[in-house]
């Protein structure tokens, strides 16, 4: 069985537990093993590289060395993914940081580990035909706006995955799950998460633009692939309707929750909001009715 080293990261242990459990459930259904990196530590995301790039690479590098025993490393959080991948790129050609790690008993062998996001891992599985016959509960008629945010495919030289301006991998996954991906304008726009403490106004304007674009495109739900984006998009919707001109509320779910639903994974693991589940079922029913009429 193919097995990845799995790096959940801190959010998936706290605010995004459902992303963790649904990711594990999806890969389990696909027959791909996820083995948690033993004794993983903070990836250094958002802060470390602003203080000292070498330190950031060393902090993330520790996790890479630990993962290399298992195999390529999969990170569900876009921010973890980017810090780990940036470190991997840096470690490839910076022998000084490799030496620092080595002095601490951690030997990094160039080329020993590849960092990918869960979207990329799932998309690889899709391309290999591993979904075939497994979509037993398709998300018929559900219109999904796939939201990639800023870190999943950017910067392209580091992310090395999908089209940087018009990524389609998550859309294809949603299509495979039986849903209808909507074409929309803001799939890679920044959600401003890092600025929420500094400049709330700016962040909320960005979030409003993203959500309004999804609503105008006719989406039922927005699929996210990052716990930070997810939190940012979910949290202040009622307030934004009052104060920031948000057109209407729209549910935000993890792409893994949707995939898991279509793969008929355990409901408890998926932990989908009851409201969203009712919407999914409503759309399925509509699809069936149309079929009967037709």
């Amino acid at each position, binding site marked *: 069985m193919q097995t990845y080293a799995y790096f959940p990261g801190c959010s998936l242990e706290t605010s995004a537990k459902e992303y963790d459990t649904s990711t594990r459930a999806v890969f389990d259904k696909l027959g791909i093993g996820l083995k948690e990196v033993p004794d993983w530590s903070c990836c250094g995301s958002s802060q470390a590289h602003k203080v000292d790039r070498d330190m950031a690479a060393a902090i993330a590098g520790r996790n890479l060395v630990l993962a290399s025993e298992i195999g390529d490393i999969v990170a569900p959080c876009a921010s973890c993914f980017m810090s780990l991948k940036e470190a991997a790129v840096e470690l490839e050609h910076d022998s000084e940081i490799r030496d620092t790690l080595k002095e601490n008993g951690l030997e990094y062998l160039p080329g020993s580990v590849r960092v990918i996001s869960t979207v990329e891992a799932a998309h690889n599985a899709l391309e290999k035909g591993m979904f075939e016959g497994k979509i037993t509960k398709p998300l018929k008629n559900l219109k999904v706006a796939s939201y990639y945010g800023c870190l999943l495919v950017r910067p392209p030289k580091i992310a090395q995955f999908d*089209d*940087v*301006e*018009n990524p389609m991998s998550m859309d294809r996954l949603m299509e495979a799950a039986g849903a209808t991906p909507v074409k929309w*304008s*803001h799939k890679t726009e920044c959600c401003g998460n890092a600025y929420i403490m500094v400049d709330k106004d700016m962040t909320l304007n960005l979030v409003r633009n993203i959500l309004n*674009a999804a609503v105008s495109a006719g989406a039922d739900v927005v699929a996210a692939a990052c716990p930070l984006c997810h939190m940012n998009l979910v949290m202040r919707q009622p307030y934004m309707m009052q104060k920031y001109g948000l057109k209407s509320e729209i549910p935000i779910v993890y792409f893994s929750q949707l995939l898991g639903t279509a793969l008929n994974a355990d409901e408890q693991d998926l932990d989908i909001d009851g409201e969203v589940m009712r919407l999914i079922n409503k759309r399925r029913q509509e699809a069936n009715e149309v079929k009967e009429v037709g």
Partner: protein
Amino acid sequence: MSRVGVFICHCGANIAGKVDVAKVSDDAINIPGVVYSSHQKYSCSEAGQKVIIDAIKENHIDKVVIGSCSPKMHENTFRKTIEQAGLNPYMLEIANLREHVSWVTADKDSATRKAFDLVKAAVGKVSFAKPLTPGQVTVEKRALVIGGGIAGIQAALDIANMGYEVVMVEKEPSIGGRMAQLDKTFPTLDCSACILSPRMVDVAQHPNIRLLTYSEVENVNGYVGNFNVTIRKKAKFVDESICTGCLECVTKCPLKKKIPNEFENGKAPRGAIYVPFAQAVPKVPVIDKEHCQWLLSPDPDTIEVAEGEKKPKRKCGVCQKKCEQGAINFEMEDELINEKFGAIVLATGFNLFDQKKYGEYGAGEIPDVITGLDFERMVNSSGPTEGKIVRPSNGEKPKKVAFIQCVGSRDEAKGVPYCSRICCMYTAKQAILVREKLPDAEVYVFYMDIRAAGKGYEEFVLRAQREYGANYVRGRVSRIYEQDGHLVLKAADTILGMPLEMEADMVILATGSIAREDSVALANTIGITTDAYGFISEVHPKLKPVEVPREGVFACGAALSPRDIPDTVATAGAVAAKVGVLFSNDILMSDPMVANIDPMICVACGACVEVCPYSAITMEEFRGKKFAKVNEAMCQGCGTCSAACRPGAAQLRGQTDEQILKSIEAVLQW
């Protein structure tokens, strides 16, 4: 024993700056066989050549080594020099001390040592040189022009007007190329069709030009003055000799609104039988076999049916029924034509960068984001909207139009690093056309910088800005998306130093120029090279800008690199002049440095026949003995046969095994 003379050239400071030329010259006199050695500033100058001639005569030198620049540069010059001194021109060997030594070596001592090694090798090799005499070949005074855009048209007309025969091969159903797709042309705004159509007609009517449209070059053999070319004339399924061009068939084809017309950049339909545009030359339709229902339906003769059952008939066939001339012939097949030419002209033009590669501009999926070429067709009165500038999404007049330059050009991440040269100018032209046709519309042009180097060009851009009020914004657009029935552009204004968000109704992308997708394959067929981007490589960008590294082959227009019509026409004229010079010879001297097979040594194994890339070797028999023989006219002197021949019967003249071994020996011995 030979009497070798060695001449070391300084090439100004080019060689002397890195190589101790005096030392090389002094040491050379000690090489066995060398009777004279000297060094001088510029051997290729008149004074330098005189020194060589005088030294040869005074010292009874019979073989010459010149340590200078690459033989590609001056081998011919120096052959003539020693010929003037009474020697056979092939008693010469050049040691390349510039490209192979001084320009690529950092350290002076090693440069000097390597220079001396190369001189030793050259002495060793030239000592065993034998006098060679060039053969003579006649010149077939007919030219093949590949590509019928403005470049090919101009070259063909100029060559034909000199009195030579021309065959023009164009792969599309009509000649005209991109220029036929344009509306007005910068910097004078004259109508493209008005200046092009008469020339297209001239080509068709010229007594010296034979036009083969819907045709492609399949194979090229031979050499300068004597190329053998195979041309595939694709089946048009319409008999050109009978068709009157009434186009009754075209109007009746049931698919007439179904297939995107390539000429309209896919923005208007054509049928399975079609002429690409109204002024097409020749005005004879072709049937596209990928779409025609008759041709796609199974042949009744091949279908077996049970007794009593009717055989299914071919589908459609409407055009055949409607054609009063009986010109439609579904049985027509591709024709292979073999012809001989003295010269080949490449005028295959360019293609445009695919807007789909720009995800941030909607990856080609936002209807109101179009390309400059789409716009040319749109403003043209015979185009899809009959000249009306309208938003493709709803057919309404746009109130605000934005242009974006450098889409694909100067973009190392997604496109090509070079500047496409024409887009600044055609964008200014299109901005003017928008303001002329829609005076109430606002026009914005996003640019990186304006490159308007050309006669009247800068003035033209200023006119677009001042007279026509186009607003130029310096900065890139980072994203375009649709919102509430219009487009939103996110950009940076780098003069104000501010981000900018703008609404527009229509965006026109100045997509860059790239090579034709089949340019590398065509170059391989002809045996020439392309640059990293697929454009045809010229021999020298400054001094031989239309010659390509195969003698007798020339290139002009946008096949060489992106260029506008004035530059295209200029290079086409230059090509015609070069062809004229070639055709002014009745006889050409052929290169004597070709392969020769000694029948006494040959064991007739046939290895050479198999490896020769030019099919120049055949098996012969004389009095019961079989042996391989080289057709000297076809041999290109590549030496492959000589490497493959085990008994050593195949030898390249001027590069014999003996000469090569002696040069290696020389480096190792002295």
